[in-house]
């Protein structure tokens, strides 16, 4: 079986659809370790990838005014138990273009694996970029995931990011996104993670609303149990008139787990407004009792509530 087939098998076992990676109309890139094992380019998208000693360098550019109809699929993974995968990625979305990226990161056998993503993202004026990243980990907890991105959203641009790590052990996650939003631009971050055993989850989300009428939402949903730890640092700045931002953090804690949230709101323009809400605690009593009243056992009821919150 080739690395591609093994990666697809692991991806399918964790709930993905490998068919997406065989269609000629779907743009895609498949990277195993530091090897590029599959790629498909479609008109309007320029894709460049080169091998590095410890990963790959990728440049994805969408031409101005291009509306990409189908999501672009990116698959990153490592099959060995140990190793490093560094993805140095640049996304350049031309003015008024529209594109959706769906990234799958699969580490089914990891015992000591590092997955580092260094992203530079530029969303041009009036463009829309959607990016979702879903992780599929094994049960060993031996993955260190460090997605780090610097995002610039130009005037009227829209950037939506979703990150999900709830299949398998989180291991150690250090999520770090910083976004600058220009006039009438929009940025939405949505990070979800589930940790147990001795997993450690750190989420850093920073949105700077620098242009008039810029809007931002930093949302995080974390659930930890056993001895897992989670820390969420959400910072939103309102630096221009009519800028509107919101931080929304919910962490569910069970057993001996510990959760920590630090929402920071900074406003330097009197006409800007930034709000925040953070809720840390056990499962909501009303939700739990509602499910128990349907005859569900407590463990299953809690699992349904947590999985729902994490979007599973």
């Amino acid at each position, binding site marked *: 079986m080739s690395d591609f087939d093994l990666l697809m098998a692991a991806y399918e076992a964790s709930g993905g659809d490998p068919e997406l990676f065989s269609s000629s109309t779907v743009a895609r890139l498949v990277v195993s370790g530091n090897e590029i094992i599959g790629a498909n380019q479609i008109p309007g998208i320029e894709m460049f990838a080169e091998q590095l000693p410890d990963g790959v360098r990728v440049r994805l550019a969408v031409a101005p005014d291009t509306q990409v109809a189908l999501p672009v699929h990116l698959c990153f993974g490592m099959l060995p138990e140990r190793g490093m995968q560094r993805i140095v990625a640049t996304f350049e979305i031309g003015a008024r273009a529209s594109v959706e990226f769906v990234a799958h990161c699969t580490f089914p056998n990891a015992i000591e694996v590092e997955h580092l993503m260094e992203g530079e993202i530029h969303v041009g004026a009036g463009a829309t970029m959607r990016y979702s990243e879903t992780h599929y980990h094994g049960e060993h907890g031996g993955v260190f995931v460090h997605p780090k991105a610097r995002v610039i959203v130009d005037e009227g641009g829209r950037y939506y990011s979703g990150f999900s790590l709830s299949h398998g052990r989180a291991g150690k996650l250090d999520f770090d996104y910083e976004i600058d939003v220009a006039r009438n631009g929009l940025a939405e971050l949505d990070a979800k993670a589930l940790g147990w055993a001795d997993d450690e989850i750190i989420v850093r989300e920073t949105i700077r609303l620098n242009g008039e009428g810029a809007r931002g939402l930093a949302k995080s949903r974390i659930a930890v149990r056993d001895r897992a730890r989670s820390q969420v640092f959400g910072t939103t700045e309102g630096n221009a008139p009519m800028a509107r931002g919101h931080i929304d953090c919910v962490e569910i804690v069970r057993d001996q787990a510990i959760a920590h949230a630090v929402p920071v709101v900074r406003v330097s323009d009197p006409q800007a407004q930034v709000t925040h809400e953070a809720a840390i605690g056990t499962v909501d*009593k009303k939700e739990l*009792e509602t499910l*128990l*009243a349907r*005859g569900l056992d407590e463990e299953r009821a809690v699992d*349904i509530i947590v999985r729902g*919150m994490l979007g599973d």
Partner: protein
Amino acid sequence: MTHTENERILEIRDLWVSREGHEILRGVSLAVARGSVHVVLGLNGSGKSTLAHVLMGAGGYAATAGQILFEGRDIASLPINERGKAGITLAWQEPARFEGLTVERYLGLGQPEPDPARLAEALEAVSLDASYRTRFVDEGLSGGERKRVELAAVYAMRPKLAILDEPDSGIDRFTVSDIARLIHRMAEEGTTVLLISHSDEVVEIANRASLICGGRIIQTGDPQTICSRYIQFCNPCENPDLVEREGAYERL
């Protein structure tokens, strides 16, 4: 086993319930016949919702004396999910919201194996179309829609005893006659309905009624008799100080 009309599915005997040192239910006794639609009518603060929560076993309320017999078995010490498994469920007056849980999944939770046909039937029973299946049971639904989903979930479950706490409050475009049709469908399927309400409009749905005031059932009888007394004496309230004091604890 065959059931007669007079068989009691639920019998509450001299039930006392306190919260934070204050008695909210003071010796409630009530018998509910299997297959009946029994309304417990009372003003806000009379102890109705407390009674619903205590019957379901919801936390925060503890019976200090008395018995709750369900199909002849005392369930007062059973946890909420064991009561659910026994066939009792509750449609909450203010239903919870669940982030990320679809209506379809929510409706199927009370069934051992979710049956798509039953879920479709349940949505239709509360006048919601199929597009609701994929919507989330969260802030995206209005209060009225959420309430209808709650009633649909109870209907889908086919419980032996459905406790409906103020099903007619806050429901938009779903009238008392719609609720009556839903309850009659439940009754036709063999579900006994205990309807908790402050609205005399719902009394006509029931075939038995009880009047609750100050944490006591003060009269049980045919719905028209109870309704007349409720309109005459309870609205306006004969004993506003008592009801207001008890209501303060119910609102906690």
